[in-house]
């Protein structure tokens, strides 16, 4: 923007390198930790890169503990949750997929009316959504546990999907409403004159124009849901309904699981959302700004 001296440029490069190193530090750690054996990690506690690498950690997780490979040959006990990787991955995908679909569906219906129909109660609904975004999960989970327990919905994916949808819906509305506000109302009015009902004008005229907003909101919903720990942790204790974050949390403090295996399962769990972020960065950036500051 302005003529910068050589020293300023150098300092800016150094600052960038420091930021890049900070961003990459945990990712390098999880990568290097996951491709070595427990023995290598323990043999020399001062080496960054071990003498030999192995993919056995991934093999043992991805074959449900059947193929142990060289480094787990001697191991007699593996936590069941490690063997349940595929189930947990599938559960996470079902929950995150359903929550994304439901929050987009209900969120766009609400966000559209909040942006278009200015009644006192729709303004109140908007305010309620803003406040709702701040409610900490923990205060919801204690009563939800008691309620789900009494209606027999503990240990079910449906219960988790309902809880997460309700929890994320306000945020979806806050992301979508500013977008709907920018779509000119004249388009729907023209469609209404041509005989469209309000609802079909929304579906056929507004929604197609809002595709970028739906993409932005959808990918954010998917990521938050994929990451959510507390809701499934409290509602689901049975292995067949655990999601990936719950499986990961169950390894904390398990003396039979060493860092190499933990890092491998962390890497497998973070891969899907890292790919999403890499591919859809632009949408996420737009969605995050829209959800925090109005339009």
């Amino acid at each position, binding site marked *: *923007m302005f003529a910068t001296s050589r020293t300023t440029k150098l300092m800016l490069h150094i600052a960038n390198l420091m930021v890049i190193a900070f961003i*990459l530090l945990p990712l390098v750690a999880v990568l290097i*930790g996951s491709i070595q054996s427990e023995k290598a990690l323990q043999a020399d506690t*001062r080496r*960054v890169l071990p003498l030999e690498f192995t993919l056995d950690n991934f093999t043992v997780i991805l074959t449900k503990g059947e193929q142990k490979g060289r480094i787990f040959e001697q191991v007699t006990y593996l936590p069941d949750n490690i063997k349940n990787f595929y189930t947990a991955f599938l559960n996470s995908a079902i929950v995150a997929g359903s929550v994304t679909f439901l929050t987009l569906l209900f969120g766009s219906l609400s966000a559209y009316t909040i942006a278009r129909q200015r009644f006192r109660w729709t303004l109140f609904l908007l305010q309620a*959504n803003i406040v709702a975004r701040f409610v900490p999960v*923990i205060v919801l989970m204690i009563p939800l546990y008691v309620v789900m327990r009494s209606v027999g919905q503990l240990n079910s994916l449906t219960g988790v999907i309902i809880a997460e949808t309700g*929890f994320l819906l306000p945020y979806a509305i806050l992301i979508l409403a500013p977008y709907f506000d920018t779509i000119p109302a004249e388009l729907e009015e023209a469609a209404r004159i041509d005989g469209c009902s309000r609802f079909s004008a929304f579906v056929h005229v507004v929604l197609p124009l809002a595709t970028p907003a739906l993409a932005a909101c959808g990918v954010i919903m998917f990521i938050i849901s994929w990451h959510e720990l507390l809701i499934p942790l409290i509602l689901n204790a049975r292995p067949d309904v655990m999601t990936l974050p719950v499986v990961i949390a169950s390894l904390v403090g398990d003396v039979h699981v060493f860092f190499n295996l933990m890092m491998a399962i962390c890497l497998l769990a973070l891969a899907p*959302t*890292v790919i999403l972020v890499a591919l859809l960065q632009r949408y996420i950036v737009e969605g995050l700004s829209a959800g925090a500051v109005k339009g």
Partner: protein
Amino acid sequence: MSAGSFAFFMNLPTLFFLGLVLAYPVIYAGYLSVHQVGLAQLRRGVFAFNGWDNYSRVLEDPLFWIAIKNTSIFTAITVGSEVVLAVLIALLLNQTGIWTSRITRFLILLPYAIPPIANGLIWSFLYSFQFGFLNRILFSLGLIDDPINWAGNPDTALYAVTVPYIWRTLPFAIILVHAALQGIPRELYEAAAVDGARAWHRFWHITLPLLRPIIAIILVLRTAFAFAVFEEILAITQGGPGDATWVAAWYSYKITFSPPNNFGMGSASAFILTLMIGLIALVYMRMVYRRVTL
């Protein structure tokens, strides 16, 4: 169909979910917080009213006050560093002539993609006293002779858990500041340059005042969320060593879901946390949606 009933039908699912999963649980948490609720009562389904008992037991519990103190320190450190770092890094990303800034811009959102619980576990590997990755790096660089017990030392543990949290949540703040920076008209800087204003003056008198609204929003949002920090604590320290990293959400969680499972006290403490965050939410609403029109 009239506009009013159309709006009502369009909002039915949202009203249903807000009622079922947000309003009702919050009210029910208030109900639980004035009743005696343990596992035995849960089994029978009968809760005895016990007035302010749960609240006074929470407020008389030294551990609760330690948790509030730790949460406050944690929040002050994370929010303070995030605001400063977000402004600095956003300015860095805005440098068009520096090629390394393009790399940073490409990588900046990466932490947003990491599940918080995985982030916590990765940092527990980084921080490990005996086998940790951080000590390995410092050994290799010749910076230390003895391993450092990052998260296991009661004096440093609370500071240690702020770093992973800052790492994970910083991209959000950077993106907001960066978006605001791009909204500042270039002419302002050009006029200032003509007037001979130095870089520092341009930042202080043009950039910073124009960033003030977004900084306020980040302050409030991040304060509210940092107050409810949970995953990194669970993965790295589980509140320890001793009570050095007990935070408010961890307190409510442990009181409720580990023996002796006091749901009443857990609800009371969670309710207190919610009230504190609720105050922050009101500040936010006044700030962003003052004339609640979109």
